[in-house]
């Protein structure tokens, strides 16, 4: 079952356009939402949640149209933009006491379980927590109201490698029962190489790819060769980088010719992003 579907989402800003953003996510999977800074990740997430007014397009979650069933959907999803950045001087206990009242399916035993597991002390205040702890606390809030879908904007940025690893482990645990899904945006693609099932890649407000991570990585190849090899190949490359002794470039696997005699490697997500950004002229 599709737990999330975004169709033809458009939003116009004077400096930036979200152009026809469409993608969908099945129940039971993790989707990574990648793109450079300013590519439109946060705007997409905010438009999906009605925090930013979209110009057109439809969003549905848990099988319901978001615009028509906003409150019901919000009962069953969790979302966060960074960690807890509100009520920094208020005791977590008090914040929780407020939040729990809003959810029909709030479960105190789940709350206690995760607070304990993450070694979170609810006598502390958000200002006394590390950024990893703040993110964990907002996850605890989402888990405690039994969210079926998590929409997370940059949950891993600002975390040290150990904290990131812990978090990713938790994400995989979250989807293990096959009922729940996570969409999370990040520009740290190594996080996704590990656990993501699907990747949606946005650049300059356009979705460039949205498919399984395995397929995506198989669809591209990193090629390296000498300067003479570059000229005839150029038209087929997505983008290339020349250096004093040769070049490297990204190519669609389907465009490869066995006669090319190039050094061929499987790219990482980061490689794909770097070459697409180069194509879009983003890093010039």
């Amino acid at each position, binding site marked *: 079952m599709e737990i999330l579907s975004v169709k033809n989402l458009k939003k116009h800003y004077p400096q930036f356009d979200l152009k026809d953003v469409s993608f969908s996510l099945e129940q039971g999977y993790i989707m990574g939402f990648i793109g450079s800074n300013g590519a439109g990740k946060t705007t997409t997430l905010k438009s999906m949640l009605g925090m930013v007014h979209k110009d057109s397009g439809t969003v549905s979650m848990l099988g319901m149209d978001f615009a028509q069933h906003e409150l019901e959907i919000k009962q069953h999803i969790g979302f966060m933009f960074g960690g807890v950045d509100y009520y920094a001087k208020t005791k977590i206990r008090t914040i929780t006491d407020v939040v729990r009242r809003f959810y029909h399916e709030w479960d105190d035993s789940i709350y206690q379980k995760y607070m304990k597991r993450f070694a979170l002390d609810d006598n502390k205040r958000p200002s006394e927590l590390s950024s990893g702890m703040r993110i964990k606390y907002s996850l605890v809030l989402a888990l405690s109201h039994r969210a079926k879908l998590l929409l997370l904007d940059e949950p891993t940025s600002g975390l040290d490698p150990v904290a990131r690893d812990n978090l990713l482990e938790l994400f995989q645990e979250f989807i293990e029962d*096959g009922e729940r899904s996570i969409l999370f945006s990040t520009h740290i693609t190594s996080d996704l190489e590990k656990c993501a099932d699907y990747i949606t890649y946005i650049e300059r407000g356009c979705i460039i790819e949205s498919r*399984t*991570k395995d397929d995506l990585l198989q669809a591209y190849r990193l090629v390296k060769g000498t300067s003479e090899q570059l000229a005839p190949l150029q038209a087929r490359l997505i983008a290339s980088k020349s250096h004093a002794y040769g070049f490297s470039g990204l190519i669609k696997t389907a465009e490869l010719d066995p006669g090319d005699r190039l050094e061929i490697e499987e790219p990482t997500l980061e490689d794909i992003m770097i070459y697409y950004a180069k194509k879009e002229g983003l890093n010039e």
Partner: protein
Amino acid sequence: MEIVISNTSGDPIYQQIFEQISAQIIKGKLASDTCLPPIRTVAKELRISVITVKRAWEELEHAGLIYTMAGKGCFVTPLQPNALDEKRSQLASEKMAKDMDYYKTLGLSLDEIIAMLKKDYDS
């Protein structure tokens, strides 16, 4: 069941899983009708995508090494010793066929390939 994933081997992860489990089945380390762990648990334990594990399981099923019982999971197919041998040569020849294409593009002759295989097998 043991699975060890290498991120530098160059083989896709689903392929590595497929090869390791098929070897364990053919060598009898995974007995007939053994229940394989759920796909999602394997993904979580190995810290890889659910879809990758699913793909490996599909390949195993396609090769006739495991079978699925709806709602119960996947089990090792009971195979007679001669059927096992057959699977073994089938898997090996499939893999070899792939490698052979590569050797051919490198322009190696059959004798050269055999000589190299012998050398590698003995070492």
